[in-house]
Each structure stands twice: as C-alpha cells, then as structure tokens.
C-alpha cells in the first residue's frame, strides 16, 4: 500500500515535505489507523494523534485524499492509492499530522458548553418529555474532532472570530435543551457579524462530518431562534 504523508518537524525542517511510504497491510488491518500504527513501528518519527480507535475520541482527524475524516473509521478498501495524508487544513501544524487546536477549543469554551440553570436541582434529575429529548439527537453526538471546522472556508478565512460549525453545533445543543435557562444570553452572544453570521451556508461541514451530523442545520436553527427571539 502506497502512502504520501505530510511531514514537518519544526525543530529540524524549514519547510514541510511529502514523504512516500510503501507498506504491506497485514490480515487484521482494516482501517487507515491500523496502517498508520504499523507505519509508526517502522518509522517512529512519524507523529499523529490517536486514542480510542473507534470513532469516539475524535483524536485522529486528518485530511485523507483531500477530504477530512477519522483515520480509525476510514476503511482501507475504499482508499485510492497513493493515499495522501495531510494535517487538518487551516489549522497551525505542530508536527506532521498533529495540529494546534487551541483556537478551536477556545471557540468551543466561548459558547459555554454546559447546562446553565440556576434553579436548585430536583432530588433525582431534571425530567424531559420524549419530544424534548428528541431535539438533542443529532447534536449531542459531536465528538469535537474538528473535521467540519477544518473543512469550512469561512473558518479558514476568520479562524479567530468565527466560532465555526463544531462550536455552533454545540451552541445549538444547549439552546435546544429544555433544561437550559440561558437561551436568550446564548443567542445574544451569537448575534454577531463574525461569531455566527460568517457562515455562508457552504455546507462542507455537513458533507464531511464523520459522525453524519449536520452543523449547517444547527446553524440554520440558531438563525431561526434569533429571529423568533427578536420578533
């Protein structure tokens, strides 16, 4: 199997380069991450993030043949060779396939990704109707892998100001939660020319999400919620 992998070591390299590898997958290798781990045993200078290897932690997001995805979910038999691997586009590279996600998580924290409810909690739990719970489906599953934000041109253009599809999906997850009482404050924060309205409805986010979620739908719902709030 042939791979072309983006290599950059800030300590030794002035410029990034593409390195070619030829490796034979073994019988148990089904996903791209299996091959990368095997490659690491041959060339231990190759750096990439990985953890759960089953699409839950979101660590191994990378650009695979021009499209963002999770190496652990990418089947080998679907890949066109040579497999070109690059770090997530638009993010500063720390080393090889590892990117700096500081800004991404700063945006995530800015939307207050936790339930806000000053009322004292009931003895057991805050109950929801099945319909109220249903509204959270398609939102809570986000694993913050950043595949969507790193595939969003608006995020490439204004990464310091636009919250990005992942952050906005998370924002709507709490706006849509019947137990949260800070909807108005959340919407006021998002009503900004940069934070929300840099989205140009390109919909790359929805197209590329490895979990099959739709950040663009969540963004549309936030816009509608803002419209309802102001009318």
């Amino acid at each position, binding site marked *: 199997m042939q791979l072309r992998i983006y290599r950059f070591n800030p300590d030794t390299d002035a410029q990034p380069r593409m390195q070619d590898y030829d490796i034979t997958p073994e019988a148990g290798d089904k996903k791209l991450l299996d091959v990368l781990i095997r490659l690491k045993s041959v060339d231990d200078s190759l750096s990439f993030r990985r953890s759960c290897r089953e699409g839950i932690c979101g660590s191994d997001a990378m650009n695979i043949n021009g499209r963002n995805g999770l190496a652990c979910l990418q089947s080998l038999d679907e890949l066109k060779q040579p497999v070109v691997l690059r770090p997530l586009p638009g993010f500063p590279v720390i080393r090889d396939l590892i990117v700096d996600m500081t800004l991404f998580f700063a945006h995530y924290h800015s939307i207050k990704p936790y339930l806000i409810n000053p009322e004292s909690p009931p003895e057991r739990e805050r109950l929801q109707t099945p319909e109220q719970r249903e509204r959270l489906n398609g939102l809570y599953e986000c694993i913050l892998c950043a595949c969507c934000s790193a595939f969003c*041109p608006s995020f490439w*253009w204004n990464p310091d100001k636009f919250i990005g599809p992942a952050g906005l999906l998370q924002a709507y997850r709490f706006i849509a939660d019947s137990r949260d009482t800070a909807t108005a404050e959340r919407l006021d924060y998002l*009503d*900004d*020319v940069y934070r929300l*309205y*840099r989205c140009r409805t390109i919909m790359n986010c929805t197209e590329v999400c490895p979990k099959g979620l739709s950040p663009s739908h969540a963004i549309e719902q936030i816009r509608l919620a803002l*419209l309802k709030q*102001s009318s």
Partner: protein
Amino acid sequence: MVRLFSGQRAWVAQRFTAVMLLAAVLAGLMWLLLGEPLDYTRWYALLTTPVGAVLTVLIFVMLAVHGWVGARDIVLDYVQPRGLRLALLGAILLVLAATLIRVVLVLATHGAT
C-alpha cells in the same frame, strides 16, 4: 463600519431585500412583456410619474442595502489587512451612496420639468 447592519439585522435585511427585488424584477418583466414596445417615451412616462419615481427609488435603496451586505461579507471573508479592509468598505459605501443620490437627483430633476 463593519457592523453597519450587524449580525441578524444584516442577515434579515439581505433576505428581505432579495425577495423584494425578485418581486420587482418579476413585476418589471410583466410590465415589459405586457405593455407597448419599450422606447424612451415609455421609460420617461414611467419614471416621471410619482408612483414610478418612488418605486424606482425604493428599488435602488433595496439594491444598495442588499449590495452592501453582500459586498461587506465578501470583504470580511477575503480581505484581512485592517487598513485595506476599511478602505474597501468605505469605497463600497461611497459608490452605493453616490448611486442612490444620483438616482434621486435624476428623478427629481426630470419629475419637476
């Protein structure tokens, strides 16, 4: 200047003016197709009536609002240096304002004669 029609207000204004301009284009097409052959006299007659003049000004106001939000978005997306960004936004505002003023002046001058 960046925040002239900020956030939701700009988003709503852009969509509202888009719908209004679409209606204006359709109405204009109907007027073109159903009326007599289009010549200078017919244009003049339309634009010098009070209703025609007011509608024309309204269309240009909506065009300016729609154009401002769209052009501002393009500048915010693609132009990062602050000085160049402000200069471009200023130039766009100037062109839109000058166009509007010229439309009003032309209509007022000819309407008065």
